[in-house]
């Protein structure tokens, strides 16, 4: 290495120093603000999820920071009253579905942006590393929409999940099957169809266990590679098995391809009960909705509830004005997650991590003050809300209708779906 190379080494060192200065400038922030970090996939294959999430969080921000005459938590009054009307501010970060990047962003948001809490992260693998960081820094992590059951089993104190996880979702599906069976409908066999990601594998593991326990025969058990160019061979297996219920756990691209391929191969599933994800995205129904008549998906949310709680229409319209689509399974959980976080910070009356954590742990909110069909919001020792009752929705005449559980159902299920 000669003198010029040494100069270059100096230049690289300087670029670190410059970045440090930049980071310092970012830290200067206005007073009377509560900063929340939001970590989502903003580029890569799931980027649309992140962008929809951004709209959902900005809608929630509007609800908290401005005065709205709605019977929804956080709506009345502008800002956080117990913190002198402090406004919420969101800092968005991109994790590109990479656990390493998610973790780095969590550390940056905590140390540079001084966030009071973090909310995220869609992919369960990223939520796993982000929640490990928040735990170590004593900052609350609100897991809005990752549904892997393993997340809550690590004895973490700062982890909170108001929505249901896959075990609860899948249990609801099998409760529904049992109920249908009691009504004399024929359900003997199920087929699992899932992608080779943490989401797909976790979901299928629970479904496989429940099916065995409750005496349903697994006619086909198909794991497929996500983002495949074709699913012909996979669908062929489902067609030969011809189960009473097809249970897919797929992200959007594969959900669309699955539905298209079933039609191309002349296979009409008798019934389809999906683990949401791709089957709760509007784009799927825009593309292949005509082939999904009568399809059932689990959900955390249903627009039907607006009949009982008119404010749901108001906030849905606010969201739609930003994103041009209705709330779905994901965006509703993201929206509600931020409101619940803001409510707890306000109740704590401080942004101190440990106190906000205690306030979150003491949360006890009736479902009627939320937009969700949940009975209550109240976290267990593991941070999971056990009362986040999931619903099953059926796609009928171009919209979703709640069909289960019966106390919130609007209509009975059309079973089999094509009949």
């Amino acid at each position, binding site marked *: 290495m000669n003198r010029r190379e040494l100069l270059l080494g100096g230049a690289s060192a300087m670029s670190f120093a410059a970045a440090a200065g930049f980071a310092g400038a970012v830290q200067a922030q206005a007073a009377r603000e509560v900063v929340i970090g939001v970590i989502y996939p903003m580029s890569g*294959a799931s980027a649309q999820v992140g962008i929809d999430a951004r709209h959902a969080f900005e809608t929630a921000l509007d609800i908290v920071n401005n005065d709205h005459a709605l019977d929804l938590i956080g709506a009345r009054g502008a800002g956080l009253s117990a913190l002198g009307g402090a406004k919420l501010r969101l800092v968005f970060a991109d994790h590109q579905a990479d656990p390493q990047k998610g973790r780095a962003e969590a550390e940056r948001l905590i140390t540079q942006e001084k966030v009071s809490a973090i909310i995220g992260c869609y992919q369960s693998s990223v939520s796993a590393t982000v929640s490990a960081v928040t735990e170590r820094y004593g900052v609350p992590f609100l897991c809005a929409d990752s549904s892997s059951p393993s997340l809550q089993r690590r004895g973490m104190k700062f982890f909170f999940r108001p929505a249901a996880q896959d075990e609860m979702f899948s249990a609801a599906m099998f409760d529904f099957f049992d109920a249908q069976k009691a009504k004399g409908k024929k359900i003997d066999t199920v087929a699992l169809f899932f992608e080779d990601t943490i989401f797909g594998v976790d979901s299928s593991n629970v479904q496989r266990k429940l099916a065995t326990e409750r005496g349903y025969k697994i006619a086909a058990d198909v794991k497929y590679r996500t983002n495949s160019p074709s699913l012909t061979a996979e669908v062929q297996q489902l067609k030969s098995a011809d189960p009473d219920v097809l249970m897919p756990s797929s992200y959007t691209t594969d959900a669309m391809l699955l539905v298209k391929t079933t039609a191309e191969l002349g296979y009409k599933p008798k019934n389809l009960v999906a683990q949401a994800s791709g089957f709760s995205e509007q784009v799927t129904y825009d593309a292949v909705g005509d082939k999904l008549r009568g399809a059932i998906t689990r959900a955390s949310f249903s627009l039907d509830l607006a009949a009982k709680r008119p404010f749901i229409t108001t906030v849905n319209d606010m969201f739609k004005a930003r994103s041009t689509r209705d709330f779905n399974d994901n965006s509703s959980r993201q929206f509600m997650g931020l409101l619940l976080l803001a409510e707890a910070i306000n109740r704590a009356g401080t942004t101190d991590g440990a106190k906000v954590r205690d306030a979150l742990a003491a949360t006890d909110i009736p479902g009627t003050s939320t937009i969700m069909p949940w009975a209550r919001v109240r976290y267990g020792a593991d941070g999971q809300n056990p009362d986040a009752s999931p619903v099953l929705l059926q796609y009928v005449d171009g919209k979703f209708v709640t069909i289960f559980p019966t106390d919130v159902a609007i209509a009975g299920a059309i079973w089999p779906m094509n009949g």
Partner: protein
Amino acid sequence: MTAQALAQVLASGLLMGLIYALIAVGLSLIFGLMDVVNFAHGEFLMTAMYVAFGLVFLTSLDPVLLMPIVVAVLFGVGAVVYLGVVRFAMRAKANQGMVQIFATFGLATLLQGAAQYFLTPDYRSIGNSWLGGKTLELGGVFLPLPQIFGGLVSIAAFGGLYLLMSRTDFGKALEATREDQGAVALVGIDRNRVFTLGWGLGAALVGLAGAVLAIFYYIHPQVGATFGLIAYVTVALGGFGSVFGALVAGIIVGFVEALTAAILPPAMKSLGIYMLYLGVVFVRPSGLFGKL
């Protein structure tokens, strides 16, 4: 597996294989002409699909009618990429191979970012084609019309390409340039012009594949990655630079993928293609029909 199921697997494999071949042939053509592997090939495919989508959105015509325009646009894209990027990569005196790989890889990333920036990462699909959703049943074997159409387009494209290479002056100039780049300058062929047209042609072919694929596949900024690796493996399996090799390899890849998915757990269906590639090149280091 019943005979009917086997017939279905083979038929689906053949149709998919013809489309793989059509995606791959442009890559092989460009390589044969000037030893350049275009790592943005998948993104060319993505661009073509978005062009098809955009044209359908603007004109509401059937995407089948708009295919010539997609092909023409991609011809332009290919020529511009050669003139703006690859020409400079070929001037590099050191590490030419790496420069080409990373210049085109940088271009691929840039195109993905640009697609997300201008078109959002949302999934798009074309719903108005006459072919869309129709399927043909022959004795229990189902053949979707869009894929049959894609297969026919692919065969026609290979036929046309054969005629172009063997019967036209342009084809002869291409052939001469790939044989001996130095000598063609002496007989008055402008090397740069041939390369520009060659890149245009290579991109036009993947444009055709994209226009076909857009009828039955969804479109988003990452879609190139789904087909990219298969295209590289297909080209290398057939032998870099061999047009005929790309056709044969594409069909083989389609068959092998479909058969593997029927035998192994479907999540591992690419394993068959990968093992086949390794098996072939370990025996024949330049692929099935490669000259190098």
